């Protein structure tokens, strides 16, 4: 009975699927955007690879790029100013950086909303209070939060780097870039609302590193990787130690297993 019902059901499913398989498909036009879209460039950083470590100087340069360029539109919601101590700033420097920003607060005496200078314990300053305000100020585009951008995009680091350095190409003839958008073949729709954010010499690095677009893009991506994964270095260290330990344990447990079985295995 089970087999009969099962076979009947199986035949019905197969019939429906075969029908669906044979139904002719509507011809689809290849999407012109897909042909223009490009995969991210191959790039590497000091922290690339399983044993890589962040370059603190690069992270600080990247923070500078974020602060002077990106932060006017993009937030870093999940990062606190105090976290900057982990990339080599002193507590006093962190305090000074935080104090440059005003954050909303409540007046303890009147209960009115006021602003006060940010403290190291505060989260990073938000350029817009909410999504609606951000869209209103940006021609209806929403500048995404950057604290997780490296994890929130496929091939995150290479993607952001390619995007930042992917401006300046002329679109192929016949391809219209809508008003207010910019051509960038690394963006999924190849038309991006963000105008070219980096130009040579836009920031002045304290350590004398020439501020080329390529250098600034690399630096800010490194900083954003740290912002997305501040635990990266300790994670790799703990992981490596655990693997070494487990390898020894595996050898020991294998020998134990062989010895326990020594008198029964033919």
């Amino acid at each position, binding site marked *: 009975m*089970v*087999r009969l019902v*099962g*076979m009947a*059901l*199986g*035949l*019905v*499913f*197969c019939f*429906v*699927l*075969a*029908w*669906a*398989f044979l*139904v002719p*498909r509507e011809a*689809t036009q290849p999407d012109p955007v897909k042909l223009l879209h490009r995969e991210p460039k191959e790039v590497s950083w000091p922290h690339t690879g*399983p044993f890589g470590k962040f370059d603190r100087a690069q992270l600080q340069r990247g923070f500078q790029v974020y602060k002077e360029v990106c932060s006017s539109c993009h937030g870093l*919601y*999940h*990062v606190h100013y105090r*976290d900057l101590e982990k990339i080599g700033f002193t507590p006093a420097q962190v305090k000074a950086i935080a104090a440059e920003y005003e954050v909303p607060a409540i007046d303890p005496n009147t209960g009115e909303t006021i602003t006060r200078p940010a403290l190291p314990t505060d989260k990073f300053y938000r350029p817009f209070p909410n999504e609606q305000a951000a869209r209103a100020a940006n021609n209806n585009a929403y500048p*995404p*939060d950057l*604290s*997780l951008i490296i*994890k*929130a*995009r*496929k091939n*995150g680091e290479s993607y952001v780097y390619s995007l930042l350095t992917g401006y300046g190409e002329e679109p192929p003839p016949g391809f219209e870039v809508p008003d207010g958008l910019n051509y960038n073949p690394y963006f*999924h729709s190849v038309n991006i609302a963000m105008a070219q954010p980096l130009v040579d010499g836009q920031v002045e690095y304290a350590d004398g590193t020439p501020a080329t677009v390529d250098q600034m893009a690399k630096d800010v991506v490194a900083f954003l990787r740290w912002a*997305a994964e*501040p*635990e990266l270095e300790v*994670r*790799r260290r*703990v*992981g*490596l130690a*655990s*693997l070494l330990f*487990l*390898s020894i*344990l*595996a050898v020991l*447990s*294998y020998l*134990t*297993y062989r010895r*326990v*079985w020594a*008198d*029964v295995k*033919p």
Partner: protein
Amino acid sequence: MSFPWAEQYEPKSPFMKWLDSRLPLPRLVFNAVGPGYPVPRNLNFFYNFGVLAGFALLVQIITGIVLAMHYSAHIDTAFASIEHIMRDVNQGWLIRYLHMNGASFFFIVVYVHIFRGLYYGSYKAPREIVWMLGVVILLLMMATAFMGYVLPWGQMSFWGAQVITSLFSAIPLVGEPIRQWLVGGFAPDNATITRFFSLHYVLPFVILGVVILKVWALHIPGSTNPTGIDVKGPQDTLPFHPYFTAKDFFTLTLYLIAFVAVSFFIPNALGHPDNYIPANPLSTPEHIVPEWYLLPFYAILRAFTVDLLFVPAKLWGVIAMFASILLLLFLPWLDTSRVRSANYRPVYRIFFWLLVVDVLVLGYVGAMPAEEPYVRIGQLATMYYFAHFLIILPIVSAVEKPLPLPNSIAEAVLGKSAAQVAAAPSGGVVAQPAE
């Protein structure tokens, strides 16, 4: 427990005697996973995955309890609370990555365990209930994993919840009310996240309960083995402890190496980047895909693209997706062959490997966008999936001529190296053959 030659528990110290007559827990352990449980001596490493699955469940429960101490089940705070865990909680990133990847590893281990059961005919009499409880566990795991994936309230969380709950709206008449009942609103919202959190917390303990039932049911007939023939005497078995505890411990270390390597070095490789974007009910991701372990079923769901026989395509897909799992419950009666192990079933073996490839293809198609050629490949693969279980298996088991079976497990093991036959095990650990 199951064989007359099993070693008997004897409490040694007065305290253990006292305890044994009041709460015989040591006796239970002795008989369940100790020297008192005789296991076929020829189990290969595929038989270790059951214990690994139990370990994976425990890891999920422990890491999950800890994460719940820091997680906040509210649409406004859920995403930020995960980042709080990742950044501020001491070693929170470690615990969360273990939980996240632990789910994937749980499924890897369980899938290998299922296919091992399919290959060696572990679902056949007298182990039908062991198998069926396993299917129940699989269903509970899928529900638990799905609800867990919703909790971070990222883009994939939200849209995954939207898509999966919409499946129920395909049911005629009562579908839409059921969907609203599931999510507690018109779309996934705060009511959804709180109930999913509650269920995600409690279901693993239900799974644990079913696991206990399953292990209990397994201990009645004992394990199958790669020959598929029944245990005939003491020469066929070895006590669980120390033989299989040592073996399981070794495979556990290998499992941990793989688990640690992924969790610490490529922790997000098995996830989807979009889930690091906070949920936005106004913007759908380009491709909504479930976690990798649900992809084959997602492919089955999407394979039905045509309304036929008065049933809309969407309902066909939903029926087929649930049928694809539920049919496993009837597997013991679909396969009538008296031979268990595919080692002695030349025809079934071919179809078994076809099924393995088929499920991999389904998983691949499930991850791809719904366009040609993937849709047609998915339709062929889905056809084979149902044909395999519902049509091919009953026919093959009726017409197939199995290879000759060995007379006993001991013969199958020792016959391979005739030189060793003389040196039958001794030393009190394993009794001499009865014959």
